[in-house]
């Protein structure tokens, strides 16, 4: 039964135009991430060479090349932005469709007229959602590896493949958080559009508002994989910075930067600690969604 519910959900997603459109955007941007990374890197090296030429002519000291020690995976730094941006919205839509389609079509009402337990139903939904998101990320991983091979003109080493696998694993947990948010609003709301907008509101708060309060990151700054260090000397940030460990989008970006080596490395235990709040939030939301499904009155229609 669990597997049947998961399969039916995957079928519904395959038929959803919106899911396909966001999936196509996500895959396109993944493919472009390598290219954009390479183009920017290539241009900056030329900018550096030109700067060195000018400074030499002026008799000034030559600074070190800031890109000398950039690892090969750094080309994919934009991926750490596309996952919280496109991936999280895609996950929200997946979660929304998972719960809302059954309510809107009346399939849930029919389903629960049979001796089917709510726990199996919700586990089936979680399974379907996880498979769908894992499929999306697996396709992104293949595209990323291909762009690395094309741009760097060599096959990534085993260590780099491992790092990519860890990055996509963490991304899956991160996306599951938003899928669960989409599910929660799809169960509780009587209006389909309200459910989408409310879930999107949560995404906006977690992605843009919380990082601004805890770290002073403005919304557009949050879109750049390289962010300027923010001053925490102000008394306001000295207080709010205490909440930074639970700012999931910041923790996701920081751990991704560490795994993809786009920022100075940190110890594995510290990186693991950054994943804890994301995992904890996913677990809490999963329990919450389970509880909501168990109590929900599926005989109630939508507005």
């Amino acid at each position, binding site marked *: 039964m669990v597997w049947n519910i998961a399969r039916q959900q995957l079928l519904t997603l395959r038929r959803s135009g919106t899911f396909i459109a966001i999936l196509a955007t996500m895959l396109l941007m993944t493919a472009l991430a390598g290219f954009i990374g390479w183009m*920017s890197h290539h*241009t900056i090296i030329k900018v550096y060479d030109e*700067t060195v030429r000018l400074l030499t002519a002026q008799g000034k000291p030559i600074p070190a090349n800031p890109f000398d020690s950039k690892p090969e995976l750094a080309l994919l730094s934009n991926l750490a*932005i596309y996952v919280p941006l496109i991936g999280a919205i895609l996950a929200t839509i997946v979660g929304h469709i998972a719960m809302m389609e059954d309510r809107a079509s009346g399939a849930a009402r029919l389903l629960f007229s049979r001796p089917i337990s709510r726990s199996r139903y919700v586990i089936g939904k979680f399974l379907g959602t996880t498979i769908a998101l894992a499929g999306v990320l697996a396709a992104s991983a293949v595209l990323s590896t291909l762009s690395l091979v094309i741009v760097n003109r060599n096959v990534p080493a085993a260590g780099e493949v491992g790092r990519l696998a860890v990055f996509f694993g963490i991304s899956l947990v991160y996306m599951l958080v938003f899928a669960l948010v989409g599910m929660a609003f799809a169960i509780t709301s009587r209006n389909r559009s309200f459910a989408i907008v*409310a879930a999107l*509101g949560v995404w906006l708060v977690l992605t843009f508002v919380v990082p601004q309060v805890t770290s002073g990151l403005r919304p557009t700054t949050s879109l750049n994989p390289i962010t*300027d260090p923010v001053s925490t000397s102000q008394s306001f940030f000295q207080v709010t910075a205490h909440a930074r460990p639970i700012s999931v989008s910041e923790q996701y970006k920081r751990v991704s930067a560490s795994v993809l080596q786009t920022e100075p490395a940190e110890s594995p235990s510290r990186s693991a600690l950054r994943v804890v709040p994301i995992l904890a939030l996913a677990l809490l939301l999963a329990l919450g969604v389970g509880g909501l499904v168990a109590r929900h009155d599926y005989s109630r229609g939508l507005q």
Partner: protein
Amino acid sequence: MIGSTNSRIVVTLARHEYRAAARNRVLAALVLVLVAITTVSVLIGAIDYHSQVADYQRYVAAARSSGVTQTAPLPLQVLSLLRGAFEYLEIIGAIIAIVLGYMSIARERTSNTLMLLQTRPITSMQRALGSALGALAIIATLLLVTGAIAVLCLGVIGGDWLAPPELLKLTLALLATIPYMGAFYCLGVVLTAHARSLSNGLMAALVIWLAVVLIIPQVGDTMDPDNQVPGGLFQSLGVDKPTELKVLAKFTTYEKVRNDLEEASLAKHYERFTFGMTDVKDKYRGFTLTHLLHEKRNDIAWLAAYMLVLGAALHRSYQRQPALPRGGTP
């Protein structure tokens, strides 16, 4: 006589649109979120400003007590504290406008007022104008509230009340938000009117929002060489401004591609205009208003063009709306 009847119908429809939108809970929730986070953003900026001004005053006092008569001017511009607020208007304001457009069509379809309206001598142009005016009035109200909160926060917490020229620049920046949000409102109407299922129309509009507001500017931003190193590439190389300009002169093609990409996004034009008006960009500080508007004419033209094209599409959607509603799946 015909003209007055015409405008009376448009005003009646606009009033209906305004009242219905103001009563909507989804919209009210979104507006509250926007106002709340804009306030938080301005508050954070104002607290920062207040402490930096206090530091500056201490520096001036110390300099004077040691006999220094000439001190550096305050390096801060109070209007630039509104950067975060305008970024939120750019991101969330666009979503609110899309939802407004979606609601406009959803209301007609689900309450069957469309059929009733079509039995009356009301043209599609009047309906399009009426609903657009009502939506623009909602947007203007929202901007008025946001602007008032921003001015109050800067004055009360930042300790710096805006002077008339600064108020004028802020008003112009807020006025530019009307065509920006208006374009997204039209997008919401057009896509929802064309979609068989209402929520599909909303989701399609949100996909376009994602591309126009977040993805295209993000790609352009990450292609900027100066954004590749924390603190800026040229600063990390210890290069002065004249040398930086000399270096960049060799990369005009790359910069043109990057700029063209950003120009494709309505959001980037809005951002450039509002950042210019609110002194976010150093290079525009000290410009007269006429000079500033002249510099920003390209962004003004793009904002107007987007609004006109999407406005025409909105009219076409009303013209082509079927007499019988197509289901109106929520």
